[in-house]
């Protein structure tokens, strides 16, 4: 019989639909896995309130597990505790960078209002000389930046806490 450890391992195969190099485990949206005789209950949480990918992720989980021979899967969504970018794993941060998205840097809460823009390194050339173009990027979780050295525009995964 499968145990929750097996399930956690399987879920590493479920990719985030918006950033497909990240698994939902890397992203930190899987909060809990409970396996008992009757069913397998998986608790997930959205990154943002309006995240359009949640239903898709839920379907992918059910589909993957059924391929692995596990039926009676229930996926539950909760809002609390609220997701934070701190839950992105180390390997997730590395994959983001390799993919060309700057991973979140630690921003203290106060700096969100009227502070300097977070210092983000260019994922292409590593330069620290970058500027924010817009606080909102291709998806709610990203901001748009540009490197002042190699001039490459890039996405920055905003810190959310």
């Amino acid at each position, binding site marked *: 019989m499968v145990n929750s450890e097996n399930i956690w391992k399987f879920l590493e195969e479920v990719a985030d639909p918006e950033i497909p190099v990240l698994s939902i485990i890397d992203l930190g949206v899987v909060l809990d896995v409970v396996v008992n005789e009757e069913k397998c209950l998986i608790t997930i949480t959205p990154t*943002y*309130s309006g995240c359009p990918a949640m239903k898709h992720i839920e379907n992918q989980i059910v589909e993957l597990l059924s391929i692995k021979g596990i039926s009676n899967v229930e996926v539950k969504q909760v809002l*609390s505790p609220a997701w934070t970018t701190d839950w992105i794993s180390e390997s997730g941060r590395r994959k983001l960078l390799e993919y060309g998205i700057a991973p979140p840097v630690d921003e203290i809460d106060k700096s969100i209002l009227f502070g300097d823009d977070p210092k983000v390194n260019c994922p292409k050339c590593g330069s620290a000389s970058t500027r924010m173009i*817009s*606080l909102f990027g291709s998806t*709610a979780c990203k901001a748009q930046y540009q490197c002042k050295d190699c001039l490459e525009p890039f996405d920055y995964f905003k810190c959310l806490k």
Partner: protein
Amino acid sequence: MNKELFEYVLRVGDDSLILGQRLSEWCGHGPILEEDIALTNIALDLIGQATNLFEYASQIEGGKRSADQLAFLRFDREYRNLLLVEQPNGDFGDTIMRQFLFDAFRKPFFERLTFCTDMQLSGIAEKSLKETKYHLKHSSEWVIRLGDGTEESHNRIQNSLDSLWRYTDELFFENDVDASLLNEYHLPILSDVKQEWIKNVENVLNEATLTIPNNNWQFKGGREGLHSEHLGKILAEMQYMQRAYPNMEW
């Protein structure tokens, strides 16, 4: 069913829904690409918040109506949103000023709502607060940029402030609903929220070299279902599909 709690949740949900709908009108019309994306991203956050709140309202009501039905099949008198959020988009400055006055309210409001004793509401507040901080940063920076910008941008956003100010008292409107819930649920005390709101608003407007207008005339009514003519038009567009083709899905 807890009627007052249902009403309270609808208020918060309707503010998010109607402003989200308004902002989505900017899709494809933003003054620059980045702002087109920013405004529609904020719209998405707000619609997401509304979804969470309507799902909870539906639960409180015992499943009588689904979240979708609450969003799309009520009549105008049943909506509980602020008059501020239903005001037309106007020019970019009007939209930014409306957003700023609202975000500056929402941040201290959600901060306090995270401490309420209703776990669902506090959970939604915790989630929404993180997004609202970004919204407020965005709208504050634009108010400063336009206010302290060119003569043209300064005059135009001062006009926006002058015409929207009359809807700001309503942010802090309370009635029997609040009175009956306040102690049991530890909901935000709106007079406290107001203190923080005015401090933040004054700071940003000072920075933006803008002046709070002297008019004392203030509108209210949204919280009790008495809306401006604009809400009917929003609903006509928003509800068209569900009214024309009941129960349609895609």
